[in-house]
């Protein structure tokens, strides 16, 4: 490989391979300076450039040509140059632009978070919480669609879709033959299967994981519980079709949902197959690895313990015995 190039993002310098995008360079630094991304997905080739949430300001083009770029650029689609200086959260212009982008994304997005199964792990929810303004200037009716069942296990709420195209790329690249795509143009575009054909593929369930909003949801988990009341646990199993590394979402002893393992940027580590996702929902078929690490900023981390909590009653026989008697008395009543 050729020499590494130096790029400075918000005053932090990092050396990356030439050809890396600004977004990926920022992800190598990590922390608050990583631009948010709604449509870019590092595991999907060709994704990105649609949602404009990752806009950054390039204040110095490169060492050879130090002129700044005239407009804000989408960091997921712009490659780094040697000596490039990028401003993300240090530029008020970027913050202002991001507010506008959130407002545009929310123009047609319904405010049904209390109903939506994605709430709590929704990227648009996080984005609008962090960057959005409280109100919208849009005065017209939002576009609405009927719910569509894509196959038996996946439900499409087109009303919630922000047209990030991630699911289309999944269908294109992960599954053998694509059966759904985007119909129509501009404001009229919508995700659809031709003649509402069910997606018959082992990996079609991954569209649920890649969807940044609640447009594609798991029908087997529909309205079962809120994600922040379920406990994520890492587990794996011997799967003939996929790697079998998943996160199980427990409520009590019951596995309510199986998803891929999502990293800090909300991207799955490995795509999992439909058998793992929809059909193996009992503890006995999994080998448990331990609680999944959840970021402190996530609502899912409430009451989530990554260690075994100390027992309330320690090894005191008198107390344990008294507890049993009290329990028997209570159950009699």
């Amino acid at each position, binding site marked *: 490989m050729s020499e590494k190039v130096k790029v400075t993002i918000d005053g932090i310098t990092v050396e990356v391979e030439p050809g890396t995008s600004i977004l990926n360079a920022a992800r190598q630094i990590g922390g608050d300076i990583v631009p948010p991304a709604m449509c870019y997905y590092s595991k999907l080739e060709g994704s990105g450039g649609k949602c404009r949430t990752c806009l950054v300001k390039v204040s110095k083009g490169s060492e050879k040509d130090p002129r700044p770029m005239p407009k804000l650029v989408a960091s997921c689609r712009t490659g780094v140059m040697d000596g490039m200086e990028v401003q993300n959260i240090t530029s008020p212009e970027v913050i202002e632009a991001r507010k506008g982008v959130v407002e545009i994304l929310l123009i047609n997005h319904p405010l*049904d*978070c*209390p*109903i939506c199964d994605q*709430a709590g792990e929704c990227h648009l929810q996080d984005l609008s919480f962090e960057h959005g303004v409280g109100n919208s200037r849009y005065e017209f009716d939002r576009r609405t669609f009927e719910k569509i069942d894509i196959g038996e296990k996946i439900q499409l709420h087109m009303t919630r879709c922000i047209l990030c195209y991630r699911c289309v790329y999944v269908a294109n690249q992960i599954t053998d033959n694509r059966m759904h795509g985007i119909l129509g143009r501009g404001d009229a575009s919508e995700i659809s299967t031709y003649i509402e054909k069910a997606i018959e593929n082992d990996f079609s369930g991954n569209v649920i994981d890649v969807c940044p909003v609640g447009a594609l949801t798991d029908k087997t988990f*529909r309205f*079962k519980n*809120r994600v922040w009341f379920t406990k994520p646990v890492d587990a794996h199993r011997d799967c003939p079709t996929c790697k079998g590394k998943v996160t199980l979402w427990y409520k009590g002893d019951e596995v309510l949902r199986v998803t891929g393992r999502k990293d800090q940027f909300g991207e799955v580590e490995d795509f999992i197959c439909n058998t793992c996702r929809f059909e193996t929902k009992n503890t006995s078929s999994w080998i448990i690895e331990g609680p999944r690490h959840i970021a402190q900023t996530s*609502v899912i981390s409430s009451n989530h313990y990554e260690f075994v909590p100390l027992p309330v009653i320690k090894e005191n026989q008198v107390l344990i015995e008294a507890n049993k008697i009290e329990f028997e008395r209570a159950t009699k009543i």
Partner: protein
Amino acid sequence: MNFWERLYLPAIFQGMGITFKHMFKKKETIFYPEFEREFSENWRGMHSLKRDEEGRERCTACGLCALSCPAEAITMIAAERQKGEETLYREEKYAAVYEINMLRCIFCGLCEEACPKEAIYLDGPIVPADYLRKDFIYGKDKLVEESMKVQQN
């Protein structure tokens, strides 16, 4: 002590005088539960699950009340609204089971503030005493406001 003080009678009558004076004073106690004191405007009593203008249940089982509850007193199970139930529930999801453990509840009002649907309010009376712990787990039968048809009759 002199003679009068050693008799103790003046002190006894003085004390009796105070007792008699109190018989004609306004009573501070009230006969609860026949009479109730006027509550302040921001009083927080028993919870009630509200209905909207058309008598449909407002609660959509989003779980934010349970999440905000510091005492973890609230539990719920959601269900999907079926066709024909549009007059019963406002949203496409509703709480099939909604329980508040009144022994755990500390009446802080955070659920009221968390609710995005203006469905829960702590505007009821004092939660009555009872004998069994299980009777303090209030379900939808006790919490949901009476529908308007019942109220009018």
